[in-house]
């Protein structure tokens, strides 16, 4: 199958071109954040403070990596379930977040924000943490170090394999592909 190469930061010109079903090799800097980091980011915004990294045109990877062994950049680092971040996501998209990498369904509110402010949802293979770790060339903690695995890291990735799963037009690969392969006539 054919892969397209994409480099971060993402801008509107790039995300306009990405369609649900595109296989992407993503390179450049991305930020990790999951449950607790999202909660803290939203709390900072509510207090009128700045976010710990430039959110405009950025990509967030929903992941809590394993600790690296000596000599490793990072331990296994596959995506976590994105839906848990849905509550916090629309405001980040409004502030300029352009891409998210995770796995699983998104809420209606997130998809509406993606369409309105032009952001794209990629999925990586859940459970493929060892394979995905090979694509991370640098990792440094940016914020919330006390959260351990839930801290915000800046990853430099090279050819991270992801799939455009929901695009800025609202096309949803989960729905499109399931319909194609559903052979169950009873349900």
């Amino acid at each position, binding site marked *: 199958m054919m892969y397209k190469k994409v480099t971060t930061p993402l801008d509107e010109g790039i995300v306009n071109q990405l369609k649900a079903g595109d296989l992407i090799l993503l390179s450049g800097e991305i930020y990790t954040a999951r449950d607790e980091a999202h909660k803290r980011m939203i709390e900072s915004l509510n207090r009128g403070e700045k976010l710990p990294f430039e959110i405009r045109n950025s990509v967030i990877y929903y992941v*809590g*990596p394993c600790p690296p062994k000596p000599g490793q950049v990072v331990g296994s680092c596959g995506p976590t379930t994105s839906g848990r971040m849905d509550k916090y996501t629309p405001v980040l998209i409004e502030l300029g977040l352009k891409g998210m990498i995770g796995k699983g369904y998104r809420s209606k509110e997130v998809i509406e924000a993606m369409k309105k402010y032009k952001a794209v949802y990629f999925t990586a*293979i859940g459970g493929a943490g*060892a394979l995905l770790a090979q694509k991370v060339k640098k990792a440094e903690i940016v914020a919330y170090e006390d959260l*351990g695995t839930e801290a915000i890291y800046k990853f430099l990735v090279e050819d991270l394999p992801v799939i455009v799963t929901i695009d800025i037009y609202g096309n949803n690969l*989960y729905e499109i592909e*399931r319909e*194609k392969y559903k052979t169950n006539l009873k349900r």
Partner: protein
Amino acid sequence: MKVIEAKKITEIVKLLCIEANYELPQDIFESLKERIKEETSPLGREILKDIVANAEIAKTQRMPICQDTGIVVVFVEIGQEVHIVNGNLEEAINEGVRLGYEEGYLRKSVVKSPILRINTGDNTPAIIHYHICEGNRFSITVMPKGAGSENMSALKMLKPSDGVEGIKNFVIETVEKAGPNACPPSIVGIGIGGDFELAPYLAKKALLRKVGERNTDEVIAQLEEELLQEINTLGVGPQGLGGSTTALDVHIETYPTHIASLPVAVNLGCHVTRHATFVL
């Protein structure tokens, strides 16, 4: 009588935690490889190939298959004639988890309070199930359970009149609703009967059975086959991105139940349904 040193148990649990997280059980690995040939979706085949490649990388580089190295579920079978000395069994198990997660560079994914949510920092405590059996047997199974699939699991108290159709509907609804979140292809563990608390325990134990093995009861074995076939017509596919491989297998365990009850629990296992056993 058999005497076992508590520190021996700690050592075993430590090794089992590391082994389970680095190496996928052979039956699951083989089943995933088989499914590449049978999968009808080209994207599904691509995903299955990556899943197999990932398991190979983890094994050769001695690193976790999945970053969610789970909360540790431990099944202990302990004979009536076994005597544990020089330590407390529960503490010995938790110490094994602590050492395994530290020395194996595994992620610490347990919070002390479900409300305050502060990480315990060492992946303890484990969730331990004891089963007392006859004689000198001592067997310990470690199952690191990730949250992706666990969070999509479900329990329902059906009415006896709902029957087999009701059971099937509930299982299929649960798998369909879980979709990509449970990291399919799944192993579907089902517990039927007992009561409100026993059914989910049976469902979890069902995940330990080898892929391809059937329940010894013919009626239940038939139900497993039918459910597997039907689940794989849902179209969910590898990672929920479409295809004919939604589940690798369906395992059912049963127990007698009350005349008025029909509890059914579905515990989903992801494609990294890890477990390792040691018998002393």
